[in-house]
Structure formats: structure tokens, C-alpha cells
């Protein structure tokens, strides 16, 4: 079969099993758009800004595990996509981004809408390709999907010069079933010796803790993690990216750790003698000050990426491999082992953890006449029966969503953790809803974040993706204001906008339903009616307490054991109490 480059590209995506492309046309990709027009297998979602395309594809990928696909034109189309590419890169999300490029003969001549996409994206992609030969196009696409989805996943850019897609140049087409890249081998042999050592250490622990992260979600290893944790009976804490990989409502789960994690999770990390980190990367939001990090613990670390191991925190037993097979091997050894978890020590450990839990670090004022953002999330959880897909933007609202929506399943919590990209939530929700048309999809956002990609409300209407936008409107860039309150003596420098739009009218202008909520008692009924409007996108503009802060918090330069709590503890330290 002889096809033009444009048709080859589209056919390759079809043969790869791609359902949706999120994109935006322009000169350099016109041949491609013409080829898209002439087929019906792939649905193209026309966004309103290329950043929206990347986040929507990302939301699709995070909620399904399948790679998200983006198509943008050269120059400004390509640069607009960069924020979304970097967002996916930081959280290891599989995506393939096809960018148009000026024709090969004029590359390098500052041609119209030319940017060096390969150069610009180099530091924020897993890999990128410039296609220089149309006969290599299909193979390059296969390679891009292969690289994006194997090993530690990540975004891959394919830069396609316009002349490569020209309709009159036809070459034989065959989509390769398999590709290999001699310099890339994502399959690692697991070192059994290390596993054995790890199991011995784990079973000798007195104060163990399981610290699990996004790698468990990415590696589809929730079931294995759950079995492993239940078998051992050890406490488990999740990173922001790992929420849902182990049921949040389970009693062994002591909540998120890190800067806005629970008091009990951070104290348990600090006091632990053995930590097993599973698909987590010791991010600075998690560790706090490195010198103070987990002073008494021996650390086991499972990660597919050797570069994640001992990058910031030196570990004692590194295990390179996929979470799933590693946990399976560990389970076998645990079952065979004559050693068992130390029941007595474990009972004492749980007792100590209970004293930390008694601090009730997530308490908030339930009597307030103002709407408390935490209350809104609790109600959202209740109304959706804990079974919604929740996307979020970045700020205080993100932390409250993470703390108060108790995710029991993986891939339900969709947020930008590593890059912290405001503007992520709305387009991501559209991608999620396309992938899961029958599920409830909520986007928890703030009045500042939502304005960064607000134009995608128009996309939501065109493609009938009824999502519920929960705007925790505190009339502040709350997260920035909080830092200014704590660290800059309340000098609220530019963390406030004087002219916040009327979101109800704005939602209506975009063809959606807008509801403004001013009182606590209105929250529940408004949420119920929003989720009952199955086929409408509803924008809930909720006026929350402006001065509310996210607690607990590890402030800059502090360790896990030194959290700022809403209600400060007495002078006795908990170490002394215990």
C-alpha cells in the first residue's frame, strides 16, 4: 500500500489503537488535518489553546493508562504545548505529541512559524524525534509509542516537517508490529539477592512504614501493593501522586505524607526504623529538609528508574524494577520465610501511631458561618460516593482535595504534582470525561487557576463532556497568600486580583450552567443538583472562607517531626509522650 506521509501518520495512529487526538490546526499541519478529515476511526478534539490539548491528553492518559496523543502546528502551536509537555514529563505520563515543522529545506532559515521544537523540548521529554525521511515515518511513530509507554513513562515529541506529509509523495506503508531500539532496553532483570535482603530487613522491623507513590499507579500495581500491605500489617502512607493506589479509607492507611501530609504519616516516617519506598521519588515536598529526613530508618527503594534511586536520599537496599513483579517476588519470599512480622513490636508501633492520629490534624472549624473549603470537599466526596474522577488545579484547593477526598482506587485523582501547573484541571477533566463518559468527573479549582485555561469551557460544550467544576473561590491566590502570611509578615504582594469575573455569567456565556454558592447550607444541595444534571457542565462558584489555610504544614527548612498544626500541641513533644 502506497500512502502519503500525512496518511501514513494518521493510519499509524489508527493502527496503534489511538482513540482521540487533542489538537489545533495550522499551516504546517494542514496536510495532516486533511488526512484526518478523510477518516473516521480517530476522533479529533479541537481545543481552544494548545496547552489545553496537552493537559486534556494528559488527563486521558492518567485516567486510562493509555498514552495521550496531541497534534499541534509549528511555531506558536508548538511552544504553547510546552507547558503541558513539561507537566507530563514531571509526573512520568505517557504522551505522544506530534508537532508540525517547517519543510526540511527551510529548517534553520528562520522560516515563518519556525521554532526549534527538538531543542526547546529536549529537557522536558523522555525523547524526541525529527522526521527527516518519509519512509521512516511509520517506524518513528511506533518507536515514539514504545518509548513513551515502557520503562518509566513520559512524553515523546515527533516533529514532522511539512514536506514529509506532502500529499503527492507516496511511499509504501506498513505499520511495524514491534520495534526495538538497541540503545533502549526498558526490561530489567530483577536482582533476587536484593529482594531477599529487603524481605529480611522488612521482617526484622520494629517500626516499619510503607511509603508508596505514583509509580504504583503508573505500574498498575495497586492490587499487589494492597496484598503486600495487608499481609505485613504495616502502616502505609502515599505521596500526592500515589493517592488511591492503596485505599484511603483502609485503616492501615495513615494518609498522605510530606509538606501537607498528615501529622501521623510524617511522624511515623520520622520515627520509623525501616522504610520501603515503592515507586516514589523522595521529592522535596515529601522529604522536608534532607538532613533531618528519617534519622533512624534503613531504607529500601523500589523504582524502575535507577536515577530515582539515591538521587536525594541515599538508600540502603536499592531494587531496580517494575513495582508489580518486584512486589510479587517479595510476597513469595515473605510467605516462604520462617521469619514473620514482629507482632509485639507492631502492636506498640500502632499504639504510638494512634496517639499521633488522636491529634486529629485535619480538623477544621465546622461551626463557621463561612463556607469551609474542607467541608466542600467532604460533601463532594459524599455526593459522589467517593467514586468520582477528581482533577485539580494547583494551590490550596488542590491540597484540600487531596486531604479530604478519600480515593480508594488508582487513576481517580488527576493532578499536576511535579510541575504544579495552574490551568491543568479543566482540560484534564475533559480528557478524563472523554475516556470515562459514564463516570462523574469533578474539577476542583480556584478562581486564579481556572482562568489559566478557562477557554476550554468552549471545548467542553462542543464535545459534550459534562464535567462539574468546583471552584473554591477565596478571592486570593490562596497558596501564595498562605506563604506570605507565614513567611512574609502578611505582606500580600500581588496574591489578589481586584477584578474576578462573574463566573456564573461566564459559564452561561460558554453555554453551561453556573451556580454561585454563598452559604454553607447551600453547598450540599448545589452539589446534588449539579451531579444530577448528567448532561450539563456545571460551574459551581463557591465563596469560601478567604483566610483559610492548609494544615498541617512542614514549613521550609523543617523536618517531618516539626509540623505546623492548626491547633498547636502542648510543650511536651510527642517523642517524650511516647
Amino acid at each position: 500500500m502506497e500512502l502519503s506521509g500525512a496518511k501514513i501518520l494518521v493510519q499509524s495512529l489508527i493502527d496503534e489503537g489511538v482513540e482521540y487526538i487533542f489538537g489545533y490546526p495550522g499551516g504546517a499541519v494542514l496536510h495532516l488535518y486533511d488526512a484526518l478529515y478523510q477518516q473516521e476511526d480517530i476522533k479529533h478534539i479541537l481545543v481552544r489553546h494548545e496547552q489545553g490539548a496537552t493537559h486534556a491528553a494528559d488527563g486521558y492518559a492518567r485516567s486510562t493508562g493509555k498514552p495521550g496523543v496531541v497534534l499541534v502546528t509549528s511555531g506558536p502551536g508548538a511552544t504553547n504545548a510546552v507547558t503541558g509537555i513539561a507537566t507530563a514529563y514531571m509526573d512520568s505520563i505517557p504522551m505522544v505529541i506530534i508537532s508540525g515543522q517547517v519543510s526540511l529545506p527551510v529548517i534553520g532559515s528562520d522560516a515563518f512559524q519556525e521554532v526549534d521544537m527538538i531543542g526547546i523540548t529536549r529537557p522536558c521529554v523522555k525523547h524526541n524525534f525529527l522526521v527527516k525521511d518519509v519512509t521512516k515515518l511509520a517506524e518513528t511513530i511506533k518507536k515514539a509509542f514504545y518509548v513513551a509507554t515502557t520503562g518509566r513513562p513520559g512524553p515523546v515529541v515527533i516533529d514532522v516537517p511539512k514536506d514529509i506529509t506532502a500529499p503527492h509523495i507516496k511511499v509504501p506503508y506498513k505499520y511495524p508490529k514491534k520495534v526495538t531500539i538497541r540503545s533502549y532496553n526498558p526490561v530489567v532483570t530483577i536482582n533476587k539477592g536484593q529482594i531477599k535482603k529487603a524481605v529480611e530487613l522488612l521482617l526484622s522491623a520494629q517500626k516499619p512504614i510503607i511509603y508508596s507513590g505514583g509509580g504504583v499507579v503508573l505500574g498498575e500495581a495497586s492490587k499487589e501493593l494492597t496484598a503486600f500491605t495487608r499481609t505485613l500489617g504495616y502502616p502505609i502512607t502515599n505521596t500526592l501522586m500515589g493517592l488511591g493506589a492503596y485505599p484511603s479509607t483502609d485503616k492501615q492507611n495513615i494518609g498522605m505524607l510530606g509538606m501537607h501530609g498528615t501529622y501521623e504519616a510524617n511522624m511515623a516516617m520520622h520515627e520509623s526504623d525501616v522504610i520501603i519506598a515503592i515507586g516514589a521519588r523522595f521529592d522535596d515536598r515529601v522529604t522536608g529538609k534532607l538532613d533531618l529526613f528519617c534519622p533512624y530508618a534503613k531504607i529500601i527503594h523500589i523504582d524502575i528508574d535507577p536515577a530515582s534511586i539515591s538521587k536525594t536520599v541515599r538508600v540502603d537496599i536499592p531494587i531496580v524494577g517494575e513495582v508489580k513483579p518486584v512486589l510479587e517476588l517479595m510476597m513469595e519470599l515473605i510467605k516462604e520465610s520462617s521469619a514473620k512480622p514482629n507482632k509485639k513490636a507492631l502492636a506498640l508501633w500502632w499504639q504510638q501511631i494512634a496517639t499521633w492520629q488522636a491529634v486529629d490534624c485535619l480538623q477544621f472549624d465546622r461551626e463557621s458561618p463561612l463556607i469551609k473549603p474542607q467541608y466542600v470537599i467532604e460533601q463532594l466526596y459524599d455526593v459522589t460516593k467517593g467514586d468520582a474522577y477528581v482533577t485539580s488545579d494547583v494551590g490550596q484547593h488542590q491540597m484540600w482535595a487531596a486531604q479530604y477526598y478519600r480515593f480508594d482506587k488508582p487513576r481517580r485523582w488527576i493532578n499536576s504534582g511535579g510541575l504544579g501547573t495552574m490551568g491543568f484541571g479543566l482540560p484534564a477533566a475533559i480528557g478524563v470525561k472523554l475516556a470515562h463518559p459514564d463516570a462523574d468527573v469533578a474539577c476542583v479549582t480556584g478562581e486564579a487557576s481556572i482562568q489559566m485555561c478557562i477557554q476550554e469551557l468552549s471545548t467542553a460544550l462542543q464535545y459534550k463532556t459534562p464535567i462539574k467544576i468546583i471552584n473554591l473561590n477565596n478571592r486570593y491566590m490562596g497558596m501564595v497568600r498562605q506563604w506570605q502570611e507565614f513567611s512574609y509578615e502578611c505582606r500580600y504582594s500581588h496574591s489578589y486580583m481586584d477584578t474576578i469575573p462573574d463566573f456564573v455569567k461566564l459559564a452561561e456565556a460558554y453555554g453551561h450552567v453556573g451556580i454561585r454558592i454563598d452559604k454553607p447550607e447551600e453547598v450540599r444541595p448545589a452539589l446534588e443538583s449539579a451531579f444530577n444534571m448528567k448532561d450539563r457542565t456545571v460551574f459551581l462558584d463557591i465563596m469560601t472562607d478567604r483566610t483559610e489555610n492548609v494544615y498541617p504544614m512542614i514549613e521550609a527548612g523543617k523536618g517531618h517531626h516539626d509540623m505546623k498544626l492548626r491547633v498547636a500541641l502542648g510543650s511536651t513533644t510527642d517523642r517524650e509522650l511516647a
Partner: protein
Amino acid sequence: MRHIISILIENESGALSRVAGLFSARGYNIESLTVAITEDPSLSRMTLVTRGSEEIIEQITKQLNKLIDVVKLIDLAESFHIERELMMVKIKATGNMRDEIRSMADIFRGKIIDVTPSTYIIEMTGASEKLDAFVAAIDSDSIIEVVRSGPTGISRGEKGLHL
């Protein structure tokens, strides 16, 4: 400590910039970098000299290995190896200086490869310290230019960096 990292990398446009970009983006230092094709035209061999603590060197090698274009690499400093650098020095040489420079070149086993009435070009290979020593031994006012390739290296014995 100084490390010489020898890398086998796909001979593709952009491969070099991935390596250089990695170093600048992550704040690792590069003392020198040489790259040229190998006996297999699809592969280039790169020799990179860097300095850092054990932790940093470990991260550098891990991050380099992550680059899709990198086929293999070794840290030559970890085993017995031979290291050579090529240098060419253009030196003002007039009057009785001509003899003096020639004998200096002899001592360092350099070769005079170009002669004009007022200059010599001396070619020299060796370990980088030897080249440093030669440059230091010549009066700096008489040096017109110094061109150095940066070190390249190869491990001793049967072991080798190949596919």
C-alpha cells in the same frame, strides 16, 4: 574527583546536544568533551571529563544512561586505562629561542610540524598533565595559540566498550 566517562552513542544529529544539554540543565560540570565516529559509522564515541563527588558521578552516569541515544558507557577512572590528549602549540621562535624551543619539544617528545622564519608549531600527545607541564615550561609571551583536543581514553586489557 576527576572522572573520564566514555560513551558509545548513536551517531545522530542532536545526540551531542542531548548530552551537553543534560550537563547544563542539571548543573554538572564538563571539563572537556570529545566526540568522533567509531569503526561502526552508526556509532560515535564520546569522551567526557567531569568532576564531582561519588554521588554526583553516580547521578551523571545514571542520567546519561537514561538518554535514549546512549548505547553504553563506562567510567574509565574506575579501572586501568590509557589516556591521551593531542595538543598543537604555535610559538614565536626567533634567534636563539629557536634552539631552546626545539630542545624543549624534544624533552617532551613533541614534534615540530610547521616552521616559518618566526614561528614553530609543535604537536604533542600525552596525558593532560604532561601537556600542561609543557605549556607551563614555555614563556607565556611567546605562545601564539594553544589547541587541545581534550583527553580521550581507552581501558586496558581485553575489556572494551563495544556493542
